[in-house]
């Protein structure tokens, strides 16, 4: 038999029909919905008089524009201060009730950012095709799923037909071999990858992340990496199944038990690329070359090691790129040539579908523990990705550590990742953020985002400026907690 990549296998398994021109009808196993990209799709269904093809595939939750403030949340949907946001969340509730779609409502256990709640509930399982009207759906690929974002017309298409008309992508493998050093996390690895291949480097490809660094990484770390595949231009990021994948899935809410579980596991173990499978594109990085990363500009590829200087436009030979650097520096209010660690931060955001899982909370808490937020920092938001993460973190006492440091412990949602709710940056403010996009205005008009890992963001909160977290680790701290 022809050697196949993981992507090839997932594709083949879900092929319903292939057209002559190379487009195909692909079967979708799991469809995740949220309030922002679904209302027009439901409206389309209604207008056409269609019903969802299959109900037990859909799972919904509100996340993008709900409040993360405790008292506003306690007031329920009617407590959402912004009227238009309220209508959108209410519309999701109404649509799910009307069509009979399983929804984890705003304050229910299970609610969370779509890409955090799907895997943690076991709604996403290895070998599935997973889609959602959100570009960070690639996150679910950490469980060896074929997962990607779709547009609203496609949301309607999947609701109505359980299929997607799509074309096969090319195969890309990104290998990172070696062992990462102290203070280097999944976020640093993926930022380094984007720094190397650029924001369009993965265009048209499905990326498989391979090599010892990803094997050593937890499933949560793999999610952080796959989450940002889209920031490298690829709709799909994946990691093959191993024991960690299977351990992660076991016992989760929607995962099968008994005989079916064993049957599933036997199949899941086949979800690896054949050793002689061919990839259209191969990229290799070495773990030794990766240290904590920080973005200095307005695109995730504008990234550098924390020890570096902000680049100077005059050092950039390519005219187009030079213009890009100039524009980014102007927006960011930065001079080329200054050390990255000299950049002061006004606010810190630890959260988003990239870095709001329990491990992220633990990493941040480790740094925050026994330390105080710098007085120059206006606000530090710690936003767990889901109700389950929140409950777990509180059970471990992490919330108390954050609060004692002067940080705010919030309710689960997208929060300051995209400023569709009340959590935003002010004009010109610099933010150490664990989210995935540093585009102009992403976190609020005129806001200046520096992407980094949770540990780095927590360290920036304490220092008041960007700082190399490695100087915080390994040194004795008072009231060290066991994590």
């Amino acid at each position: 038999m022809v050697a196949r990549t993981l992507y090839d296998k997932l594709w083949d398994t879900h092929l319903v029909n292939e057209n002559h021109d190379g487009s195909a009808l692909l079967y979708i196993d799991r469809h995740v919905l949220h309030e922002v990209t679904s209302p027009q799709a439901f409206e389309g269904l209604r207008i056409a008089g269609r019903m969802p093809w299959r109900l037990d595939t859909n799972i919904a939750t509100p996340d993008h524009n709900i409040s993360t403030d405790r008292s506003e949340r306690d007031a329920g949907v009617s407590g959402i201060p912004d009227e238009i946001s309220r209508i959108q969340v209410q519309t999701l509730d109404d649509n799910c009730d009307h069509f009979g779609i399983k929804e984890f409502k705003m304050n229910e256990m299970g609610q969370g950012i779509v890409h955090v709640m799907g895997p943690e509930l076991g709604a996403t399982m290895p070998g599935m095709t997973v889609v959602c009207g959100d570009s960070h759906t690639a996150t679910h690929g950490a469980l060896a799923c074929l997962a990607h974002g779709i547009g609203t017309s496609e949301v309607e298409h999947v609701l109505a037909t359980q299929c997607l008309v799509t074309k096969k992508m090319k195969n890309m493998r990104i290998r990172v071999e070696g062992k990462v050093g102290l203070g280097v996390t999944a976020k640093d690895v993926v930022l380094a990858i984007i720094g190397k291949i650029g924001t369009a480097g993965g265009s048209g490809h499905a990326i498989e992340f391979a090599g010892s660094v990803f094997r050593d990484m937890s499933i949560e770390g793999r999610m952080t990496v796959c989450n940002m595949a889209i920031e490298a231009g690829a709709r799909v990021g994946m990691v093959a199944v191993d024991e960690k994948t299977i351990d992660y899935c076991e016992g989760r809410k929607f995962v099968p038990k008994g005989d079916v579980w064993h049957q599933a596991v036997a199949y899941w173990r086949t979800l690896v690329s054949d050793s002689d499978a061919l990839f259209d594109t191969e990229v290799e990085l070495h773990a030794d070359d990766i240290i904590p990363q920080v973005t200095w500009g307005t695109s995730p590829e504008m990234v550098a090691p924390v020890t570096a200087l902000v680049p100077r436009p005059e050092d950039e030979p390519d005219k187009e790129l030079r213009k890009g650097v100039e524009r980014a520096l102007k927006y960011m209010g930065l001079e080329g040539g200054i050390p990255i660690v000299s950049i002061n931060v006004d606010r810190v955001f630890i959260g988003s579908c990239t870095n709001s899982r329990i491990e992220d909370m633990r990493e941040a808490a480790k740094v925050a523990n026994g330390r105080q937020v710098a007085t120059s920092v206006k606000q530090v938001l710690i936003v767990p990705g889901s109700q389950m993460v929140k409950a777990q973190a509180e059970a471990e006492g992490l919330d108390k550590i954050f609060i004692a440091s002067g940080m705010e412990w919030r309710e689960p949602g997208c929060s300051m990742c995209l400023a569709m709710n009340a959590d935003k940056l002010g004009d010109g403010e610099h933010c150490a953020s664990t989210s995935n996009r540093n585009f102009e205005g992403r976190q609020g008009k005129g806001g200046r985002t520096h992407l980094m890992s949770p540990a780095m963001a927590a360290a920036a909160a304490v220092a008041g400026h960007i700082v190399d977290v490695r100087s915080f680790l390994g040194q004795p701290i008072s009231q060290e907690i066991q994590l």
Partner: protein
Amino acid sequence: MKAFTQHRGLVGPIDRANVDTDMIIPKQFLKSIKRSGFGPNLFDELRYLDHGEPGQDCSSRPLNPDFSLNQQRYQGASILLTRKNFGCGSSREHAPWALEDYGFNAVIAPSYADIFYNNCFKNGVLPVILSEDEVDTLFSELAAADGYQLDIDLASQTVTSDSGQIFNFSLDQFRKQCLLEGLDEIGLTLTQSEKIKQYEIEREKSQPWVYGAIK
């Protein structure tokens, strides 16, 4: 779906690469539950000097004179000329909705982000891919001539300038057909209902855990 066969119209430029969907339609406008009405907020942060919020009357807002599409000569533009990796970032379909609502029928760029490219076809907006050199040529011609127009013909896959220069572009034949005929993709897929049902029967036998999980 809206059909696209051919179009002649005024060209408007945005001379920068990597224009992301946040720039095309900032997130505060995503709160709408409708598909239409996004045109006045297309490129909102670049286009206006003040901060835009949904539900505002945009006609009285201060325009940014430095934003290309605000210039008198580009009023009524229906073809957007721009640089590579247009539409990167978030998957929001509001981006093509806003372009369409503003009055753009087509975009010309050297490359697009995958999801955005896909979304355009579903909304009757044709994303034309020309080479970087060809796009450069169009930018210089546009800069040199007021009222610069182009002809785009989908059937023959060509862009023709008034000087008679013809640029060919390629695209997927299925998408081309859907766009030419304005086909309803869902209706088209539902003609294959039997195949989908057959697939489900087979799949449920071999992988039962995929079914019935979410209740």
